[in-house]
């Protein structure tokens, strides 16, 4: 969950305004007015130097909300033009993130910096410890030659006065695969060949510079058309909104969708299929198998960790099975996955049965725009009730548990949990792949987000409460059926 306070509040407010603009009788005009409505003349300027700068930034953020890349913005194109183009487009883009580079200005580049605490001491441990000859003494003070500095931080540790510091760039630091970089010009950009869509950078940047490219307009267009539009809600949605998931179903239908399916239904298929596969692989003598339901992990495998492929379960994700069921039951329907994370946008893009992806934040914004009060609504039942274990997929440990509970011999599963992908856990996975063994364990559950999907970048509730709410709700759900 994102705790950026103001930046995230602004992003949500913009989404609400975009939706309201769409629902008004003049979308293009209302879209153009968003920056002016949010920062009217005479208003005290909350964050930046002047109202014009604030409006320019809000315009950029709105561009992302309309689904376009901010980097390619031509200042002469107005928001009404963007709104028009959004109405006309028939395709969504594979690139699902965009960086508001104007925000990067306020953020220093990643470097090693000598502070005023430097005493110009005689011993000069910084200079002697630097292997690259990057430190010289000018006017009795250490100076770092940035062209030679390799950022190894030996000097940072060597100085007894702690006079040398590493200035870090939050987005770069947060990225587990080195995909986002602030370049010489000081602007951050994402290398999509490396990016695994984990969403860490969206949460890490204090200026909220990294945006998801929203598909909300495409979804609203589908709802407005005469097509049937069906929402598929991820298991981790329990606890992300007031009320229970039966009232949530009514709320989603009241906001314009025709029907709602729990992706936990597909999670039950994933758990059972994976359990069968687990037995087969163990019988074949494989030492361990990893789960395959996390979209961020699947991107990691594809882009950085192909050597682990032989150990990854071939079972499809809960979303895959759910979307397949929905398209079978309603062949002409438009399917919308309601997601905790940006990684699932990538999965949705690759799966022809998933037409659009919408985040919890976006669904929330839709409720706000439509003034829907969930707790006041009647409950609607789901055609298929999902199991307790399927509904527990959204938190770390839940997937391994579901495989275990699917088996008659539960003790045959010895799980090990990768709770969040970071440089260390990726190294660990590489080790498992290289050696073909995972000591003391035979089922590795991998979740890209710390805490599992309840820690996804687009969640609304904090993890602790979310986990509690899921447990409270699912204790009354049936256990998953066992596989033969």
């Amino acid at each position: 969950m994102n705790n950026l306070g103001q930046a995230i509040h602004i992003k949500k407010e913009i989404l609400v305004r975009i939706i309201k603009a769409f629902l008004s009788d003049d979308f293009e005009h209302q879209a153009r007015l968003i920056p002016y409505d949010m920062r009217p003349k005479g208003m005290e300027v909350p964050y930046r130097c002047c109202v014009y700068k604030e409006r320019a930034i809000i315009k950029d953020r709105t561009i992302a909300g309309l689904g376009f890349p901010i980097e390619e913005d031509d200042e002469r194109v107005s928001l009404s033009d963007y709104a028009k183009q959004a109405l006309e487009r028939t395709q969504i883009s594979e690139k699902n993130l965009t960086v508001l580079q104007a925000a990067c200005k306020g953020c220093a580049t990643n470097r090693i910096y000598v502070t005023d605490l430097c005493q110009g001491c005689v011993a000069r441990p910084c200079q002697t410890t630097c292997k690259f000859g990057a430190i010289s003494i000018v006017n009795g003070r250490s100076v770092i030659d940035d062209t030679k500095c390799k950022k190894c931080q030996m000097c940072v540790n060597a100085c007894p006065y702690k006079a040398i510091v590493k200035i870090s760039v939050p987005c770069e630091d947060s990225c587990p695969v080195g995909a986002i970089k602030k370049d010489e010009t000081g602007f951050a950009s994402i290398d999509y060949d490396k990016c695994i869509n984990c969403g860490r950078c969206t949460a890490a940047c204090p200026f909220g510079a990294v945006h998801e490219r929203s598909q909300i307009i495409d979804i609203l267009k589908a709802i407005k058309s005469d097509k049937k539009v069906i929402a598929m809600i991820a298991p981790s949605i329990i606890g992300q909104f007031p009320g229970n998931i039966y009232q949530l179903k009514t709320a989603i239908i009241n906001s314009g969708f025709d029907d709602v399916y729990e992706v936990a239904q597909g999670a039950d298929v994933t758990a059972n299929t994976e359990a069968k596969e687990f037995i087969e692989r163990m019988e074949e003598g494989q030492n361990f198998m990893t789960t395959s339901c996390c979209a961020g992990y699947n991107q990691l495998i594809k882009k950085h960790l192909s050597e682990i492929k032989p150990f990854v379960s071939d079972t499809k994700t809960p979303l895959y099975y759910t979307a397949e069921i929905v398209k079978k039951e309603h062949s002409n329907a438009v399917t919308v996955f309601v997601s905790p994370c940006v990684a699932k946008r990538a999965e949705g893009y690759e799966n022809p049965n998933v037409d659009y992806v919408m985040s919890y934040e976006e669904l929330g914004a839709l409720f706000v725009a439509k003034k829907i009060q969930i707790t006041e609504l009647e409950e609607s039942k789901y055609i298929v009730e999902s199991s307790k274990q399927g509904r527990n997929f959204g938190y770390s440990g839940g997937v391994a548990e579901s495989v275990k509970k699917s088996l008659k011999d539960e003790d045959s599963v010895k799980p090990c949990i990768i709770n969040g992908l970071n440089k260390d856990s990726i190294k660990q996975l590489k080790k498992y792949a290289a050696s073909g063994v995972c000591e003391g364990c035979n089922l590795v559950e991998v979740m890209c987000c710390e805490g599992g999907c309840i820690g996804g970048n687009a969640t609304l509730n904090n993890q602790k409460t979310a986990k509690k709410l899921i447990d409270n709700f699912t204790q009354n759900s049936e256990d998953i059926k066992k596989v033969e």
Partner: protein
Amino acid sequence: MEKISVKVCTGTTCFVMGGANLQELHDIIPKKYGDKVELTASNCLGLCSINWEYSKAPYVKVNEEVVSEATAEKVIEEIDRQLAKQ
């Protein structure tokens, strides 16, 4: 001494706009103020549809005072202010 009443809005708008985070008040308030403060969760307080609407949500009411764009810190500040007045 009158108890101070704190009403945290758990209506959809407030929840979505950041009110989910205010749940930590349920841990903080009893510990910090004992029974001097009464904390309740409330349905939509009706504030999200007037004036600046959703853009100032989440809302919390401390007695008759409205805390907008509420955070746990802001609410505690307001409680302290009112306690000092008593």
